[in-house]
């Protein structure tokens, strides 16, 4: 079997299913990390939102990628609140919008959604790279994806580069002092543990990369 360069969006719900499974599996881990510098609820918040997304998808028998990302966006925005509701809500909203009316997911479309998502989170949250937030995962991951494609890489290679950069970005938060969010209050005491949001963001990007790659090259 050869490797595909695109896949149909009409049964693209699997991307969101994989996200739901990933976040649920990491519920306690994410809360534990958050406990070190924040209030220990990141896993709870995320798992609640993603579980509600699964309920919405099942209730409406969602199959396509656009509808799946819409369910995810609504679950995050309307049901969970916190910081993660609006931040990840705006992020996934861009995937929903990018996929609406489109049949096929290819490297360019994913790249367009990813870039729009990062821009939206940046605008809303106002955090910069180095502030010890999910931006430290998101920004380098998007750059790596974009540059891999620009350098001639294919969809799968770009996704792999995104994953790797996301992991490095996540790890980079370990030595940072938080400048935003609850952890900022800790000052120097925030140094030494990775950021919870940066970690969930890495898990999300890696899940998307893995699930799409598995479909492209089964």
């Amino acid at each position, binding site marked *: 079997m050869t490797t595909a360069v695109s896949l149909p969006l009409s049964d693209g719900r699997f991307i969101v299913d994989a996200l739901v499974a990933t976040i649920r599996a990491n519920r306690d881990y994410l*809360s534990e990390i*958050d*406990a070190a510098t924040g*209030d*220990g*609820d990141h896993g*709870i*918040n995320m798992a*609640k939102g993603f579980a509600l997304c699964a309920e919405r998808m099942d209730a409406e028998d969602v199959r396509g990628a656009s509808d799946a990302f819409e369910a995810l966006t609504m679950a995050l*925005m*309307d*049901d*969970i*609140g*916190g*910081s*993660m*509701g*609006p*931040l990840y*809500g*705006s992020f996934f909203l861009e995937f929903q919008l990018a996929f609406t009316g489109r049949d096929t997911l290819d490297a360019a479309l994913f790249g367009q959604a990813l870039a729009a998502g990062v821009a939206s989170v940046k605008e*809303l*949250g106002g955090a910069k790279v180095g502030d010890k937030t999910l931006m430290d995962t998101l920004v380098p991951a998007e750059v790596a994806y974009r540059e891999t494609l620009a350098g001639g890489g294919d969809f799968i290679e770009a996704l792999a580069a995104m994953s790797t950069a996301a992991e490095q970005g996540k790890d980079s938060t370990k030595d940072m002092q938080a400048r*935003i*969010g*609850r952890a*900022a*209050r*800790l000052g120097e*005491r925030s140094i030494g543990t990775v950021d919870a949001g940066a970690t969930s963001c890495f898990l999300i990007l890696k899940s998307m990369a893995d699930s799409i790659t598995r479909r492209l090259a089964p």
Partner: protein
Amino acid sequence: MNRVINDPEKVVEDMVRGIVAAHPEMALDSANPRVIGVATKKPEGSVGLVTGGGSGHEPAFLGYVGPGLLDAVAVGEIFSSPTAKSFLDAFKAADRGAGVACLYGNYAGDNMNVKMAVKMAAAQGIAVKTVVANDDVASAPKTEREKRRGVAGEIVMWKCGGARAALGGSLDEVIATAQKAIDATRSVGIGLSACTIPAAGKANFHIADGEMEVGIGHHGEHGVQVTKTVSSRDMAKMMLDIILPDFPLAKGDEVSVLVSGLGATPLMEQYIFYADVAEQLEAAGAVVAFRFVGNLFTSLEMNGITLTLTRLDDELKACLAHPCSSIGLKVLA
């Protein structure tokens, strides 16, 4: 930890059910159960007041809805911002054609959800202006006041904004009064024991017996210092030593003092602490004109105490004296 709950994942739903059962006047028509308000309408054409925030701080936030206070409150999960949709629904419930003042606390989640809700409200023709409370002195240095959190000082902001609205103030006037109130307000807290989010099942911070955390946040955010537990008198001194350099009081300045227990602190101890604060403030030449003591802004079953000072002028004094009625605060005519 032993609790009086049913499902730990549904404590907010169950609490809202209890609030509405005990205070039927607070049930709104809103299809959104995460919005609580005063169903008995205030004068048509007066400014609507909204706040919102995470649950677990009861009587804040929903306990400050009522005549002379807030109109509608967006209710979040425990220690977590309400959704943008809930803020939007609260705006809709509070709007009486004169616009809505959203008076909330400076937390990342609340900032973002309010921002999105204000955008959505504008698209629906509802004018919303905001004041962001940042009274928690220990949460950022004076040079970065915009980073400071809102804590119990929000009550003073709601009270003054609510009075201004009840007195017929325009949206800009209500916003100006609320902003003035919070600008004149500083708070600091001391934590003596941690609390546990029911769904988490274990505390995410820890305070050892015999130690206290000075400057702790309302969600257990680390403070400025962990020390041996001192006497009430010394706690009062440490807290004033944190507030006053930021906020010098001149001889004869009139102040409001608000003391709140964090949840498990006996009322007896809150009054012991109040006596020590009042004594030291008066020794410094300040005149205490208003006092509020009780479990006014809590953090579940956290043990500890918060102190909130407001420097008063004639307008703020008139606003604090204005009658109001709510679960958390009643001022009689």
